[in-house]
């Protein structure tokens, strides 16, 4: 028995492909919904959904304004799962749509499976202390899926493509928009990562970490306080349950204590190496190889020995 109808809604075409490919075997019918004109729809067709609906956006428009039109489309089914990518906009749209469909929303879902004709969603709770498996008990379910839940597959392109029937509602007035100044690193795809924690004393000392990263070809990420409190690295670079969840071949943690929240972001790494002054730091229970010592002594020595 499979699920009758799944909607996949995404403001990112890469994520659209991944989710459509992953849920195609679980559902009788997969409908993809994207934001943009016919040209966007043409690009999105590679997702391989049975049907593709596009929601045209003008300069002032935002995907969130289509909540009502999308709800009308979903309600034609009488029961469906609506799956989003996990972007900020998608989480906003998901919440509004959930209200229109009278259902709750599960976000940052990290595993989706089909069991006995229903979808089972898994997500982290209590800052990574546990994984909770849940299913919807109402006709409609709404969820956002984290990146990397499914392996990418290639499907035949969608040919049934149409614009959405309803019109967008008036939205919140946008006065200005600009590209984000601070970049971020795509840590999800990184094979080697250096992970900086509060053991780093000053922002300037990041140069030392970057020098080591260059020598071994790694990206630099960090724990939450380094990005949010100190603002030494972009927020996109912090790993943890509420940040990025990474799966590199190896990660070297430098001055990271290893709180549950952070471990939840790095524990899919194949090998974890940790350096920390504090012998009692919980990170040492979660590493493969550890040195209890001073990062200011160890990092320069590594640069020298590995150059």
């Amino acid at each position, binding site marked *: 028995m499979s699920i009758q109808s799944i909607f996949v809604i995404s403001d990112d075409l890469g994520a659209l492909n991944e989710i459509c490919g992953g849920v195609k075997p679980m559902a009788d019918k997969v409908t993809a919904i994207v934001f943009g004109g016919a040209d966007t729809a043409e690009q999105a067709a590679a997702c391989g959904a049975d049907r593709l609906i596009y929601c045209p956006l003008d300069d002032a428009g935002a995907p969130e304004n289509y909540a009502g039109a999308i709800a009308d489309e979903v309600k034609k089914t009488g029961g469906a799962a609506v799956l989003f990518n996990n972007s900020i906009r998608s989480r906003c749209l998901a919440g509004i749509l*959930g209200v229109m469909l009278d*259902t709750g929303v599960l976000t940052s879902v990290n595993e989706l499976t089909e069991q006995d004709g229903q979808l089972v969603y898994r997500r982290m709770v209590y800052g990574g202390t546990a994984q909770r*498996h849940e299913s*919807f*008990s109402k006709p409609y379910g709404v969820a956002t899926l984290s990146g990397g839940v499914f392996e990418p597959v290639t499907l035949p392109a969608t040919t049934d493509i149409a614009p959405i029937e309803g019109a967008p509602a008036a939205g919140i007035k*946008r006065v200005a928009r600009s590209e984000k100044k601070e970049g971020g690193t795509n840590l999800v795809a990184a094979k080697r990562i250096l992970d900086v924690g509060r053991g780093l004393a000053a922002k300037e000392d990041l140069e030392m970490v970057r020098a080591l990263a260059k020598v071994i070809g790694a990206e630099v990420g960090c724990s939450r306080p380094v990005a949010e409190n100190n603002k030494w690295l972009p927020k996109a670079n912090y790993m943890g349950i509420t940040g990025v969840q990474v799966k590199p071949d190896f990660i070297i943690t430098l001055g990271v204590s290893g709180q549950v929240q952070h471990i*939840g972001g790095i524990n899919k790494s194949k090998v974890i190496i940790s350096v920390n002054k504090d012998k009692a730091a919980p990170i040492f229970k979660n590493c493969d190889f550890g040195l209890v010592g001073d990062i200011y002594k160890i990092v320069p020595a590594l640069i020298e020995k590995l150059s």
Partner: protein
Amino acid sequence: MKIIVCCKIVPNEEEITVLGDRKLDLSAASWKIGQYDLNALESGKQLAAATGGTMTALSVGGPAALDASKIRKDVLSRGPDDLKLVIDGGRDFSDSLQTAKALAGALQEIGQFDVVLCGMGSSDLYQQEVGIQTGALLGLPVLNNVTDIQPAGDGLLRVERTLENEVEVLEVTLPAVLSVSSEINIPAVPAMREIMRAGKKPVEVLSGSDGAETSLTTLSELAPEQQDRRQHVIEGDGEEAIEALVQFLKKECL
């Protein structure tokens, strides 16, 4: 400006015990204000100061979370003029819509307000949806990941919202419900004077509303399987220790 800040009282995740069968024991965990709600309280305090307005804190939850005077005082020491509570032992508040309905009911009971601020997500379940759903239930404008809020004249706020690759500046007509990013500020530690004053501020228990129905069934809740890490830890940062690390890196990683 009349500001309402929602905050969730959650078990301290650092004090949750994982049992042998990977189930959780929350009985020893103390209650705290959700970490990200501290940002909402701080934003509310700043906005109230900037507009000469008032700030009310609002929390919905079970009696175990909300009955203690210690936690009530903690909330009140962070800027609110008063605290309103919906104490409901019948809901477990693990469904975003169920929680949003309780908050929306409380907001209707409160009546008049200009802006409702929420944190980025609760630090226990972190759905990041309750603020959005609360606003949507009331038919109000909603925004998430707000990184700056400025008064912009009568009945308006100018709000900055930071998305993955862009920053939007939006003009929001009030009343509205905004979820602030944890980047928006660094919450101040309450001063002793504020802690002393907190005990004298009014606390009102609202009557609450119906609609306890949940959309979800929890099938299981287990700690992640402990990954087998080798935990080969060497004490010291001398030549020998560093050389051992270099050898490990060369053999296994590089």
